[in-house]
């Protein structure tokens, strides 16, 4: 079957959306049908990724409306990177959830919400329309609020309410920004908006809108002044959802949207400094809060804040090398942080605790979980040859090179980056020492390894960690460089969607619009 790109792109959203609404129906017929259907949807997304892998960038005009009218989906390098990351991590998470979620009731709604979240994230990264992006963002966000509260214990409800209120405020800020931007440009199509903004004289309103977006998407990405919800919400969710939230959601909803809007749409000069400042702040404060934690999942959540700081620093630098490093770290963090959260889930499920002080000596009874956890810990700490090392190295080099624009302060920033990397290592040595090595406590003498399906997804992610590290010379030009070029190419983004200015004028004037 040979489908064109325009036929493939809507499927990225349609497949998980259809699965989400079919799951409650098929569950009436057979108890296990929800699991089966989610697995099918996960595999279908992977197949779709394989289908679009080698293709050049392209667009899909929904309903045949020519832009700037109607809604369009765009697949360029940046979207492709995100779509592939989402498909791979969600597939591993679905496999893991097959047995992990057995102890919960109401698994039907769980898989429905998970599928809705995937559909929303795919929609956010593919959409070429600002309001459409907002709607998909809300689909993903609202299902994630419900998933955080899934256990309905005291902590989970409290964390979910906090997350919901802050997430709701963030969405309102984003919608407010969209309203102002619409009043300024009279369009919602991102490419058309970019062309109008680039053509007009600089407007102060754009800065206000940028501030609103930085606050709104910054809240979604949990950058430091806006991070308060993350250390509560991410650990409270069931482990597969923690992996989805930390590995994908904060990136697709937060960082991707920031990159797309700040690089491709809004004409801004000063945004780079703000992004670098937020990045450094998140990096340093996140890691200092993480070092003192004894709750396994809470420690991981604080590290998510810190690692997102790296991503944002790379993106804020805006140089080709810095942007490539930031995007590569985004992919790597998606892989190793979801692996770490899944490992913490295995440990919690087998031992019944997340407190590092009560654990120990898990290497003997749980070899697969321990080995994969070690791989992920080494990756996040930036030990060569694992994937985290290469992306951090690129970011550090890019920061030092930025001395030509930023002056000698760039060297200080590079030194801070190295220091934070060292602190990360210290904190994960602690995890290794207390959880995996040492004597096995009496209480945990009968601990057993996680189930086969869970181990399978852990091993898959660990292999990806090593593969992206050893094969970084392959992953960079194939995956990351197209994404970087797409982000830096403002004119290319406009021309991919819109016809040349003369034709556009004819269409708007009601002239011959036939293809």
């Amino acid at each position, binding site marked *: 079957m040979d489908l064109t790109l325009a036929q493939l792109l809507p499927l990225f959203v349609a497949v998980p959306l259809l699965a989400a609404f079919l799951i409650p129906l098929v569950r009436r017929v057979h108890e296990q049908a929800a699991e089966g259907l989610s697995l099918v949807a996960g595999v279908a997304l992977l197949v779709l990724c394989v289908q679009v892998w080698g293709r050049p960038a392209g667009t899909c005009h929904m309903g045949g409306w020519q832009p700037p009218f109607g809604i369009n989906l765009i697949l360029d390098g940046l979207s492709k990177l995100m779509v592939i990351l989402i498909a791979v991590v969600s597939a591993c998470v679905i496999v893991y959830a097959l047995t992990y979620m057995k102890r919960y009731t109401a698994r039907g709604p769980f898989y429905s919400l998970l599928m809705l979240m995937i559909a929303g994230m795919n929609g956010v990264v593919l959409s070429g329309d600002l*309001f459409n992006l907002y*709607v998909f963002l*809300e689909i993903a966000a*609202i299902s994630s*609020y*419900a998933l955080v*509260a899934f256990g*309905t*214990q*005291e*902590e989970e*409800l*409290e*964390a*979910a*309410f*906090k997350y*919901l*209120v802050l997430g*709701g*405020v963030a*969405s*309102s800020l984003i*919608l*407010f920004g969209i*309203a*102002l931007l*619409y*009043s300024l440009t*009279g369009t*919602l199509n991102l490419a058309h908006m970019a062309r109008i903004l680039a053509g007009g004289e600089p407007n102060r309103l754009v800065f206000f809108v940028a501030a609103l977006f930085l606050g709104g998407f910054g809240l979604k990405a949990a950058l430091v002044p806006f991070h308060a919800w993350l*250390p*509560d919400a991410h650990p*409270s969710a069931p482990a597969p959802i923690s992996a989805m939230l930390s590995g994908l959601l904060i990136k697709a909803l937060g960082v991707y949207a920031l990159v797309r809007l700040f690089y491709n749409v809004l004409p801004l000069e000063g945004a780079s400094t703000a992004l670098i400042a937020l990045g450094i702040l998140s990096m340093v404060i996140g890691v200092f809060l993480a070092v003192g*934690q004894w709750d396994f999942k*809470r420690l991981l959540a604080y590290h998510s804040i810190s690692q997102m700081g790296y991503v944002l620093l790379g993106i804020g630098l805006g140089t080709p090398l810095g942007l490539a490093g930031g995007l590569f770290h985004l992919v790597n963090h998606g892989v190793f942080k979801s692996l770490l959260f899944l490992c913490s889930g295995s440990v919690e499920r087998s031992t019944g605790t997340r407190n590092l002080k009560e654990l120990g000596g898990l290497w003997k009874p749980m070899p697969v979980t321990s080995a994969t956890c070690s791989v992920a810990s080494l990756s996040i700490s930036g030990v060569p040859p694992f994937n985290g090392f290469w992306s951090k190295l690129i970011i550090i080099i890019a920061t030092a090179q930025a001395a030509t624009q930023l002056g000698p302060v760039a060297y200080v920033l590079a030194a801070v980056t190295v220091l934070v990397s060292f602190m990360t290592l210290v904190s994960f040595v602690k995890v290794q020492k207390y959880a995996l090595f040492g004597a096995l406590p009496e209480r945990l003498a009968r601990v057993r390894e996680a189930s086969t399906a869970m181990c399978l997804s852990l091993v898959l992610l660990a292999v990806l960690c090593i593969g992206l590290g050893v094969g970084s010379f392959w992953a960079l030009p194939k995956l990351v460089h197209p994404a970087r070029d797409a982000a830096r190419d403002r004119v290319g983004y406009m021309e991919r969607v819109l016809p040349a200015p003369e034709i556009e004028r004819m269409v708007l004037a009601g002239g011959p619009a036939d293809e």
Partner: protein
Amino acid sequence: MIYYLLAAGLLAVGMYAVLVKRNLIKIVMGMLIIEYAVNLMLILVAYRTGGQAPIVTEQMRVSPGPFVDPLPQALILTSIVIGLALVALMVTLCLRLYQRYGTLDTSHIRRLKG
């Protein structure tokens, strides 16, 4: 201009309720006010002075005057539906929190810290 300021004021009122109030229900109401302020903003953005409803009628063919931008009106319909989902979820969470903690006061609902 005064209308824009009023919408911004409404947003500020909602923000105040969300940030300062300690009762969960009041926080929910604050969220509602924020949503309405943003929706109002979208409607105001679309308004044209002396504009009429964007429906093509015989009257409009005879004397075509300015009419308001119909797109944001479609947008806020979507936004209201999203708001409904958000509020339904929020109220459900409040109910469950009340069942668990026996109070709606946020100063007593704080197991999580650090």
